[in-house]
């Protein structure tokens, strides 16, 4: 690891001024950044620790939205009564990620900004367009058993490893931030950039911005939603495919449906094609399956990750079917 300076920020404005300096990064839980610094993937000259900033905690806004502070730990998010009551899929998603120890460290903003776990990204000796633009992608010809099938480009087939972000995609969360020029917000659907030929630029967050909170739009109590994650071991592993879904059925017809997929793309994948197919139609397993197939028609699997297509389809079907049973 390269030597670096460290500062603990006590005011947001100071933090923003500090980070404007060359090669400075914000540090929160450190579970991803410190990892990447140890590997030499990240080489900041200075870290600004933002955990002492007043960005911690979960509160309800006047309009009923729920606001999760940027430095709220994943554990706090998952355990919060209002999250569990109104956004159970978010609680489940967070709990499905990492381990108890890591969730006690990792923060909301850090989780949103975490980098891919593609082994070639983490290995300085490998070609990786995300790490070194223009160097190539070792995964396409190499090991890609757990890589993306949707929205990929020839330049990158890495997946986003976050479970939390999949549920936030489901709930149409809004990311709020501050820069030296003011405050801003980005709906999560626009927060992650498509891969294109710049996989190194992952989000639409302005340079030098500090995420201050994530807002979950108002939602009635007791509404069902569900997150299910399939992985290579029963716990403490990244997703092969995960599904977050939210379904309202009245008189056998789909009144509202939202579906988000994890482990299939460079960002949490909102399955809007499937949602459109289902809306207003009968809530049957066959229809769920067909809708998932429609979503996955655009899949571009590689030689070793083709299993993700039937897995994602089956999982969407299973989770939606499960939600109809709970109704």
């Amino acid at each position: 690891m390269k030597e670096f300076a460290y500062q603990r920020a006590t005011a947001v404005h100071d933090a923003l001024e500090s980070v404007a300096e060359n090669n400075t990064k914000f540090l929160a839980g450190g579970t991803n950044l410190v990892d990447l610094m140890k590997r030499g993937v990240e080489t900041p000259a200075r870290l600004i620790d933002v955990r002492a900033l007043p960005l911690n905690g979960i509160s309800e806004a006047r309009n009923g939205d729920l606001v999760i502070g940027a430095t709220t730990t994943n554990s706090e998010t998952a355990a919060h009564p209002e999250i569990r009551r109104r956004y159970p899929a978010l609680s489940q998603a967070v709990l499905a990620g990492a381990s108890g120890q890591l969730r006690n460290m990792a923060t909301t903003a850090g989780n949103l900004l975490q980098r891919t776990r593609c082994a070639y990204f983490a290995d300085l000796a490998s070609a990786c367009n995300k790490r070194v633009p223009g160097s190539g992608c070792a995964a396409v010809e190499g090991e890609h058993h757990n890589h993306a099938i949707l929205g990929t480009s020839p330049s990158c087939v890495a997946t986003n490893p976050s479970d939390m972000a999949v549920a936030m995609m489901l709930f149409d969360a809004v990311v709020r931030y501050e820069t030296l020029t003011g405050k801003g917000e980005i709906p999560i659907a626009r927060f992650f950039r498509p891969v294109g030929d710049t996989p190194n630029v992952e989000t639409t967050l302005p340079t030098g911005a500090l995420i201050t909170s994530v807002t979950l739009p108002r939602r009635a109590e007791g509404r069902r939603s569900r997150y299910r994650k399939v992985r290579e071991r029963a716990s403490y592993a990244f997703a092969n495919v995960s599904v977050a879904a939210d379904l309202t059925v009245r008189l056998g017809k789909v009144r509202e449906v939202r579906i988000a997929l994890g482990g299939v793309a460079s960002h949490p994948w909102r399955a809007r094609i499937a949602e459109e197919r289902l809306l207003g139609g009968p809530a049957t397993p066959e229809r769920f399956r067909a809708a998932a197939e429609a979503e996955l028609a655009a899949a571009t699997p590689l030689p070793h990750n083709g299993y993700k297509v039937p897995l994602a389809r089956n999982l969407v079907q299973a989770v939606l079917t499960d939600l109809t049973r709970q109704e």
Partner: protein
Amino acid sequence: MTTRRQVLKGMGLGAAAVSAPIAGTAEAAPSEAIGSSWTRIEGKDKLRGRARYTADIPVEGMAHGALVTSTITRGLISGIDASATLASPGVIGVLDHRNAPRLNPQAGSPFFGPDGQFLLLQNDVIEHGGWPVALVVAETPEQARAGAERLRVSYVEQPHDIGFSAGHPLLRPALPSFGPDANKGDLDAELAQSAVTVDERYFTPPESACAMEPHAATVWLENGKIRAYDTNQAPFGVAQVLSVLFDKPLTDVRVEAEQLGGGFGGKTGVGPQLILATMAAMIFSRPVRVALTREEVFLTTSARAATEQRVRLGVDRDGRLRAIGHEAAFELSVKAEYIENCVEVAKVLYAADAIRTRINVVPLHILPPNSLRAPGTAPGSFALESAMDELAERLRIDPLDLRRRNEPEVGPVSGHPFTSRNFLRCVEEGARRFGWAGRDHRPRQRREGHLLIGTGMAGTSFLTTAFPSSATITAEPDGTFTVAIAAMDIGTGARTALTAISADVLRVDRSRIRLRIGDSALGPAWGAGGSLGTTSWSWAISSAAEELLTKLESKPSLPVSVTSDTTNEIFSLPPRERHAYSAIFAEVAVDPATGEVRVRRLVGRFAVGRVVNPLMVRSQLVGGMIMGLSMALHEQVVRDEVTGRQVNADFAGYHFAANADVPFIDADVVADYEPDNPLGLKGPGEIGTVAVAAAVANAVWHATGKRQRRLPITLDRVIEG
């Protein structure tokens, strides 16, 4: 034998200890300690964080070494630019092939010959990815690592070959050190006359030992002598090899460890950490610690070889085996010989008119394979016992009946008598405990909601013997006995077991035993490997105790010491079939929509000789079974075919079972006693791992109707459209 078995009947774990006659002595020893479930002697230290592992022990003035490993798989080092490294804060120096001490290329293993993996930093040649090319030594670990990151190594790449298959043109026979191929009867003729046959191929991937403690060594020189704390399973054997490598007399090398954080074969021999730390201590005249990173443990130590195995079985309509053919191929490095003896079980477990085994290797540009818990038998039994299940399927009989009908009277290949054979007892007791009776043997018959449920079984033999060792016992003036032997406790409970054994053979309370282990200076001794640590060490201890007790009869002035050497006794054992046995039963739940496989129940019954400490033996058996479960479902070293390098060299990429993957496990022993061991012992250390993968794979077939002939059984291999 029958009498002895009857005497020992009921000696299950948790049952009271049974006094057994000790071979070679006229009288029976009191057996109060052996058979008692004492908790671990060092337990409280481990639970308070006070037990000291190699990297916990500071040495005054110690510097830290960090490795630089090759980023290419094959080629030559064309240049090393150390300028940035040497300018990096705290860096003391760089060791590479231009300035490293020369090593003796004859150093190696008695079984496999000279070992090229030891010859670190001797030339510019790279023959596998991750090969250490330099060591950067600095004042602190962070400075050493930063210095290593700044070293610029350039290479000239050459084409590599890591593509293992049994059809590879370089395929050749393995060394015959573990015995000749079996060539009993005429395999082809028997297969031709068989009513039902199986001819299938099975594949197992490279796997890594993954002891939780990464390899580490701290080395310093004391009056020209090499002193080392090192993570290894065999301090004497390691000191011996180190002395050859550095051309020192054995008396000038001393290797010690207090606690070892697991080995599982990965710390069997001399690791790169010890060689590099020794070199650095010599060149920089400082004590040097080299603690491998987790990635380096994967890249530079060893792995279990990938295997491809063809099993042919032929059987009469009534289930009597006519033919067993087991041809195994495994991958080898170009640096050293090794034998992944997959065919051991095929020579022992079942009677057949014809038995033919072959074992071949393909040398490739890969990390040299070496022992991993139950070498040979773990992948070998997966193939053989999967094939047996396929045979039962084709015969439409109970897999248990297939075993019952093929129990041999004598060694099926050797013709030698068995010393104690309790395989069917394991099968029957396991089946009873598991509730096997009444199983519908047809696949895909049980459902629970969306889950498919299946059960499967498999069994194995596991060679047991003892290796020559020496122990020194001193009767102290204060009435205590110091028992010294170069054993290692790698987590097995050796300290506790050897203390109990010492107490019994000396016929004193265990409070009077002072056990010293973990030090090469204590004399020649076998290591913690091959499930033969306790069998070998206890033999040396009981031998010394016997002589000491005789000496003490004349009331000599104390202290009095006796040193034993079991070489002659062990080498004069008659040729007989000595094995431990097991039967494993598994129940799995499979979600066909996702391919997820969960092991819901595991039952194992074991014939592992007399049980020294039921609590710890059960822990070892359970732990072994968990490693088998993990091998079945999770583990594989993945190499990039283009670059030749391991892609998943960390615990996020190389999965082994986490807590959530493991159910409560029912492991127990059946009454058993090894007459060719003075204390009746066999080794329980590895057998737990064997046969589990086949039992799980057979259960997955039973659940789904689809055979799993390739490990691990990952979800993509199970998912249904």
